[in-house]
Every structure is written in structure tokens, then in C-alpha cells.
């Protein structure tokens, strides 16, 4: 069997080298698909068509399988995130402490449903299935930073701050 040569990097963007590094570390094994997509997501912020194609070809995984995995897991996003992200935890403890109202208020304030980004690309409104900080419910992540016992006033203030930046 001829030796497998991985495809060339899509561009000279340095981040592709990081992605390639993950695959190389795993010997370009097929089971490294999720690991590699994690690297793409953390390097680029989301998975675009080019990235999925490149990873699928490098790992010799059918494109359908790579796309299936990318869409199966909630952690992977196929759309670029906003400049800022407000992630509201909707786990049970947070729900009992009224997080559904936080979501409704944020949706009203930003005029977008959860899971979307404002038209100007500034703020993404996401929900999470429990971040495991239930002792501090209700919890939100503002740009990845965990804030516990969030009130709607506090949350709206943060959204205002981001809007005028």
C-alpha cells in the first residue's frame, strides 16, 4: 500500500499548523476526528466548510461522517461567533432559580433568539446544558468567564457595556 500523504494546508494561516499538529500527534488516525475538530474550534472559533473538508481529507474520513460528527455535538459551531458571547446556563438548578427569565430577557433585549448572533456580529446569545457550577445558580458565562447568582439587571448591564464598546 502506498504511504499516505496528507493534503497541503489550506492556506499559510498559522492556525492550520496547530490543527495539523493535533492530527500528527494522533498519527492521522481516523479516531482523532473529534480531537481535531476541537482544535479547529478553539483555533478558529467555529468550523467552516474548508476546515471540515481539510480535516476529513487528512484523516481519510468520509466527508459525510465528518459533517455528521460536527453537527451531532453541540460544542461545535458551524457559524462564526460574535465578538462577545453571553452563555446562559439552562441546567436544572439554574432553571429552578429562574434562568428561563434571564434567557427571555436577553432575547428581548438583543432582539435575537438564543443560539444566534446580533446582525452587527457583536454579541452571540447561547445557552448551555449545565456548566457544573450549580451551587452558584443561576450561572452565566460572559465571554467564557463564569458569573454566579446572576440577576437580570446585572446581565442587561453587561450586554449594554458590550453594545457601546
Amino acid at each position, binding site marked *: 500500500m502506498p504511504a499516505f500523504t496528507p493534503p497541503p494546508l489550506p492556506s499559510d494561516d498559522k492556525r492550520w499548523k496547530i490543527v495539523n499538529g493535533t492530527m500528527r500527534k494522533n498519527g492521522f488516525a*481516523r*479516531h*482523532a*476526528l*473529534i*480531537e481535531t*475538530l*476541537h482544535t479547529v474550534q478553539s483555533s478558529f472559533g467555529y468550523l467552516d466548510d474548508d476546515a471540515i473538508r481539510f480535516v476529513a481529507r487528512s484523516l481519510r*474520513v468520509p466527508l459525510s*461522517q465528518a459533517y*455528521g*460528527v460536527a453537527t*451531532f*455535538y*453541540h*460544542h*461545535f459551531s458551524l457559524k462564526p461567533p460574535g465578538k462577545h458571547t453571553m452563555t446562559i446556563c*439552562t*441546567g*436544572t*438548578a*439554574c*432553571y*429552578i*432559580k429562574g434562568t428561563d427569565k434571564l434567557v427571555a430577557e436577553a432575547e428581548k433585549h438583543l432582539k435575537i433568539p438564543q443560539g444566534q448572533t446580533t446582525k452587527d456580529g457583536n454579541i452571540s446569545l447561547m445557552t*448551555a*446544558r*449545565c*456548566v*457544573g*457550577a*450549580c*451551587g*452558584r*445558580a443561576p*450561572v452565566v458565562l460572559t465571554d467564557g*468567564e*463564569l*458569573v*454566579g447568582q446572576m440577576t437580570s439587571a446585572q446581565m442587561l448591564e453587561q450586554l449594554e457595556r458590550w453594545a457601546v464598546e
Partner: protein
Amino acid sequence: MTIEELDQIAESTRAEYAKFDNEINVCMGTGCLSQHSDQLKDALAKAVAAQGKNAFVRRTGCMGLCAAGPLVLVDPDETLYQHCNASHADAIAASLGGAPVAELQCDLREHFEQQVHVVLENSGHIDPEKIDDYIARDGYQALVKALTEMAPNDVIQQITISGLRGRGGGGYPTGLKWGTVAKAGGDLKYVICNGDEGDPGAFMDRSVLESDPQRVLEGMAIAAYAVGASKGYVYVRAEYPLAVSRFTNCLRDARRRGLLGNNICNTPFSFDVEIRLGAGAFVCGEETALIASIEGKRGQPKPRPPYPAVSGLWGKPTLINNVETFANIAPIIRNGGKWFASMGSERSKGTKVFALTGKITNTGLVEVPMGIKLRQIIEGIGGGVPDGHTFKAVQTGGPSGGCLPAEMLDIGVSYDALVREGAMMGSGGMIVMDDTSCMVNVARFFIEFCMTESCGKCIPCRAGTAQMHAILTRICDGRGAMEDLDLLVDLCATVKETSLCGLGMTAPNPVLSTLKYFKNEYIDHIVHKRCPAGVCNMQAPAAASELEVLA
């Protein structure tokens, strides 16, 4: 590494700390870190240096009482301070050697005294990023003992005697599982640690991985020796970045100390572990789905048998246990299976860690002997429902569990008792609800969770949960009919009996348990068009989500 070398490390670490008059432990678990306990720790270190105190400031894992965080524990006096921030550092440092800072002191002795810590014995006492801290508290004694003094069968026998059952929720006897994997043929076997703690409202595994990662690794290594595996995987949720980083660090340290890698303790036993990140799929907590995920595929479960113990990861015999199960292994080997079996109830041995959250005063992690009454956990250790509200229900077992009313508070917590009453142990989430929670809405919340988390492979789960959600939404919106209740019970039975994996089989539990104990609330919604808790908007038009389902 020999037992003598291990003792020497422990001795010298203890001697190093003994030089200090005081040890100041600062909780740096996720809960307290979110309130900047890292800044508090730095401020304390500065204050101690500035005041010339002979004290050591240590980063530790979770101390359990998340409600009162950030927490600081000053040893040897065991003074616990609550709600600390960097501005309190000077006062705490100044109090060393004198009277404690009264206004910060946390006076919750009864909260801690009613607990028994086995899994959490080191949490809050050691630096989770220092392997020597773990060794100084008898860490790795069990692994060295197993490798040098015990045959693999002896190890399995001790686990069997201990009566330990899987802490992930199923409650399968651990010794039996290990025995099956050990008997399976083939020279390549795997050990997997299931850290895909997807139950919302549960954070025991996160806390153990963050606070005492070496304990989990030691448990895995002992398991690998017992069943004859040489490779392990730890599957952790990507939502737990701190747990991932602390476990990564733990692996590196263990390799450096020769406790992981080739020929551990100069024996033929070799074992190495890799971390695999979850990607946000609840179903991956199911063992065959988790295996598919490690193989780089979509996390869809497979029919069992064959069980992973016979044909698991890449078709090889695989042992899968939960984080908390592995965390129990080292103390069992150290103290013997009989010691473990002396705790707990008839058929549920040992202790269990619960995440106590919701409408309860002392939110956080507690570890109690099995068999303890629910009332003691909620009213005693948990401090009851705050703000003058009354207790309505406690939900155990996450989306697969059930809601138990006040009348059930006197049952003892064990695998069998909870299942008998329509709930389940689950991984250990315990969410308390008061009179402001609507039980119909709660049932809808859980079904919505299972509906969105259903992997879509089998129809009962995929379509059944969607239909149940549509009915519950109808009832919540005041458009329900009494026939809907029969339909719900019918659907529940179908989904329960015919789903492929645990997700579908247990998804109806929240509906069935609320129907059993809170049927009057359903009737209020349907007949009187009112929501007793004032949660549901009874005149709401058909929700968009329901229309989507029907379309």
C-alpha cells in the same frame, strides 16, 4: 517506585509543611474561582509575607459548601471563613496565632459533622496540582500495595467484598464488572473513566477531578492491573476546562514520578492514560455511546449485548466506570473491602457524594453514608428551604430521575429504595424545589432536555419524547384535556419499554413521578386552567417549539 520511596516522599512533604505554624487553604474549585478566589489567594500570600507570619498559603480543590464561597480553611485550628475576598486577606493573616476573625467565620459545624468523607477525604486539604500533596495523604499506597503484594484476582475480590456499586447511576456491582473484563480473552484491554457528567444539576465528578485528580488516576491504574488492561482513557466534558487542565497536569506528574508508564514499580505492569474531550452530548454518558465518541464517531449507543466488558473500544474488552467509582478504589484497597462494606445500607455500601442545589440554604457538595434519610440531607445538612418558602419536592437522578414529595423524605437513600419510589440514584444530583416551582413545568423541562439530547437513533425516544413534550406544553398553556394524562402514561410506557438505551428508558421518569405524586397540579392546569405555583402562562398561544414538532 517502591513503598519505601513513596513513604519517603510522604515524610519529606509532611516535614516541609510542618515547618509552618499555620496552613491557609483557599478553595479554588470552579465555584469559588468564579468569585476570584485566585486573587484572594495571592492577597493572602502577600499579607502573610508582609506581616512576617510563618504560614503557608495553599490552593485547594472544592470544600463543598459552594453557597458560602469563597472559602478559606485555616489549619491546624480548622477555622473556616466564608464569603472571603481579597480585602479580607490582611485581617485573616493578622488573626493567625490569635483569635479568629469573627465576622467571617462560618459556623456550620453540623453541616460537616453529619457527613462522612471517603471520596472527598482530600478535597479542600491538598493542592490538586501537586502529586506530593496527594502522596503525603497516603496517595498511591494502594497502587503500590496492589502491584507488589496482591494478585489481580485478590484486587477484584476486595472490590467484590466491598459491595461497591457503580456510582454513575446504574448501580451495577463493580466487582462483578471487573471480573467479567478480567475473564475476557485477548491481550489488549482498555479502561475508561466516564467523566461525561451530563446530568444538569450534578457536579460531583467535576469536583473530584478538580480537587483530587490523582485519586481517580490511582483507581484507574488499580483497575487496569486487576483486569489486565494497559491503556486508559478519561472522557471529560469540554464544559469543564478546569477539570481538564488539572487532570492533564496530574497525568504529567504521575508519569514523572514513575506511577504511570512502563513497568510501574519495577513490575511487568505498564499503563498509560489519555484524555478525550466530550463535545456536549448528554447521550455520551451511556457507555456504548461514549465508546463511539472516543472512536471519533457520533455518540450513538449500540444494542447490548455484546457488553463493553466483552467487546468495547475498538472491539476489545473494555472496563468503563464513573469518576466517583474510581475515586473509591484506593481507600478500599488501602483499608480492605470489609471496611467499606461496614458503611452504608444492606445492598448499597459505602458513601455517596451528592450535589445539593436548587432552593436549599447550603448548596454544594455533600458526602454521606448510603441509607441516610433524605430528610437528614435536606433539612439537616442542607439547612432546609430558605426565604420562608415550603419544601415541595426533591429531584434526584437528573433528567432520568424522579421528583419525590415531602412524604417521601423519610426513605433511606439507596439504589433500590429510590428506584422503588419512582426516582433513581443517578450520578448524584439532588435538586430541591419549593412552592414556587410548578411540577408540570418541571416535567416539561426534563422532557425538553431529553428531546433535544435524544441522539435520534431509535424511534421511541426520538418521536416519543417530542410527543410527550407537545402534550406537556399543551397542559402548561392551559389547552390540555384529561385524556392527555392517559395518553402521557401510555407514551411513557412505550418509550420506557422500547427505547434502545438508558436515555430513552428513563426519560419518562420525571413525568411518571410527577403524575404519581403531584397529579393534583396536572388537574389544576387542565380542569381549572390555573397554575398553583404561578409559573405557567395559561393563556399563552401555541408555543413555537410545539408547532415545529407538529410540522
